[in-house]
């Protein structure tokens, strides 16, 4: 019973962490272009990083 009273809350806390991580990833538009994300790793430019950074700043300004 002690094991359960520790493990059940623990699993729920971990579940909540997973839920929050998912909601965050949706809000930062990480699902917007899955094919593109897979392809971009092959591109050899640093520009992407700056674009991504600008984008996030832009979004956090919008409250998004």
């Amino acid at each position, binding site marked *: 019973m002690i094991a359960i009273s520790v493990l*059940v809350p623990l699993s*729920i806390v971990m579940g909540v962490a997973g839920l929050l991580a998912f909601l965050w990833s*949706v809000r930062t538009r990480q699902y917007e*272009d*899955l094919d*593109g994300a897979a392809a*971009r790793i092959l591109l050899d430019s640093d520009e992407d990083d700056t674009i991504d950074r600008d984008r996030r700043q832009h979004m956090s300004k919008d409250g998004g």
Partner: protein
Amino acid sequence: MSCCSAEIGLGVPLSRTNSSAEELAIASRDLGNGLRQSVLSVPAMHCAACIGAVEAALVGVPGVERARANLSLRRVTIEWKRDGHAAPDLLGALAAVGYDANLPAAEIDGEDPTLAGLVRALAVAGFCSMNIMLLSVSVWSGADEATRQTFHAISALLALPAVFYSGAGFYSSAWQALSHGRTNMDVPISVGILLTFALSLYDTVTNAPHAYFEAATSLIFVLLIGRVLDHTMRRKARSAVAALTRLIPRGANVLQNDGSLDFLELGDIKAQMRLRIAAGDRVPTDGVLEDGRAELDAALITGESLWRSVLAGESVRAGELNLGNPFVVRATNAPADSTVAEMTRMIEAAEDGRSRYRRLADRAAGLYAPLVHSLSALAFIIWFITTGNLHTALTTSVAVLIITCPCALGLAVPMVQIVLARRLFERGVMATDGSAFERLREIDTVVFDKTGTLTTGVPRLLGTDGIAPEALEIATALARTSIHPVARAIVAAGVSTEKPLTFTNVRETAGMGLEGRFGGDLYRLGRPEWALGIQNGALTVLSKNGEALAYFSLGEDIRRGARDLVDTLKARNFDVVLLSGDSSKAVDLVAGALGITDRRARLLPTEKVRAIKDLQAVGRRVLMIGDGINDAPALRAADASMAPTSASDIGRSAADFVFLGHDLRVVTDVFDSVQKAAGLIRQNFVLAALYNLISLPVAFSGYVTPLIAALAMSSSSLIVVANALRLAPGPRPRETVAKTVLEART
């Protein structure tokens, strides 16, 4: 250009970049500070190299601040500023690196708040139902009473956010339906969820052995999946009317009697006023040209690619773009009565083609909801009479509601539609509305527009046999300096020599033609009255010092696959009709070549709509395939509609399907896929019904435990989803692509 080079070259010679730069600017979104945002659809983008090439090409254009490609949607978002007065030629830059681009048919302005809300609700419901399921498994496998009660209590807590946050959408929709005296799919869902939750809560408090929390929450979860899929398939197309009104300038310079110019707002312009239209401006209202000659681009109004040359006394229409020198127009209408304003009203009036249709899922719900409710009520009454126990009766009637939950029904249609949309997207067809698939199935008559639909809409040189090679070489070299459609047609047909001739003093006279000197001789390419000094009815002539060297006549190309499509449609017993605004001669030529007997020429947009309404009045279901603004009201009035990507923005906005590329045979593909999808939807309905048929007696006789309910519900949903996935995209037809490229190059 790695993997994608195969497709490059298909579209480039046919793209109309000249007028589109302006169209693009009109359609862009204002971000403030002079920064504007455009979204372009780039269908040929396939790989990392494509992303790199597209972004690099766009960033290289003066005025472009940022370009970001989205490979999943084959779209690129560009932020730009006006470089001086002109809008950057984004399409030209993309065409230069081999990518045909156009404005997307569907609006994708940033986020969709409804979809974001649905995804959040889905995530919460998923979290809650999975955790409750985890606890329930240990209860089902025989936990002792104390553990069971603890787990039920935790489950009740976990169910709260799912029931009250994620499920809220169902309740409000059900309430809305009920308060209007109607019933919809959400009514049994809401009643089921709330009753189940309330009963389980009661059972938890009274230490009963069964609680249905996992049933209530997984119900919400699965139904929300269906909702999310359904929402992504709902129409988010640009409003055709909004696109149309952007073609009208805000006002115009009015020439007063004393010769001064006054800028008047659109509403203050009246008939008989004299308006001065600067180069690059659009005509605000219909009128008559006062003097001289005007070159007008009517591509956005009619979809015709040839520039229109207008003489004094002839009429100009609202929305046309002045390409040449400034001119003065005497308005014949106030802007509110102009052709474009009239068209706006017609598009608005013609909406009913679509709204008349009731979606399949809604029709199913109309049957389903009353049936389930009466069954559930019946179970309650029977059990209450026979046992006299309120709790047992209530449990049974709730079990009936849960077990008949329309999970499978809610997934049956959207799942197939989303797989179908994806499959068609791979083939280059974009669907703007899920219900279009359903409407397309009932079609028995196909109506075509001619220019730009059955034909490419781009003029082509007819027969170079009668033209001396030297003359053609000279004409080609001269034409290379101009972007006039006729000049382009000559270049396209002409010979490309190693060392093109270079002319001196090349000059283009608007509305007349091109001239240049070569070795002391004056060559002119253009209208005969200008090049020869005589009028002889020919369109274009090449002259050397005033003597004719060669005559050029232009015609239009029939679109690739048009013949095949018409034959296929006829073989499948569709009625094929051609409605065109063009002259009878041109229509007969094309209709004859394609074997279309039912044809009508010289139709105004209103008459096209009336022709479609007449067909519908005798019970026909009409698919309209067209491209111009003049087709937009007809596209709206028809039961389903398609437009090629080369269509005007308004044409694309009004259509249900937009197909890429230049091959009409893709329309047959759409029909085939829709037919197959309809079969799958039918199977899905049968599967869902079958499941209910088996499970209902079990529920009715009171044998349903939470375990059985969970198993039955999830298995029926999984079967429906798996069945829909059978439509999944096959391998890309590589061979056909390679073949068309060969055809295009030979």
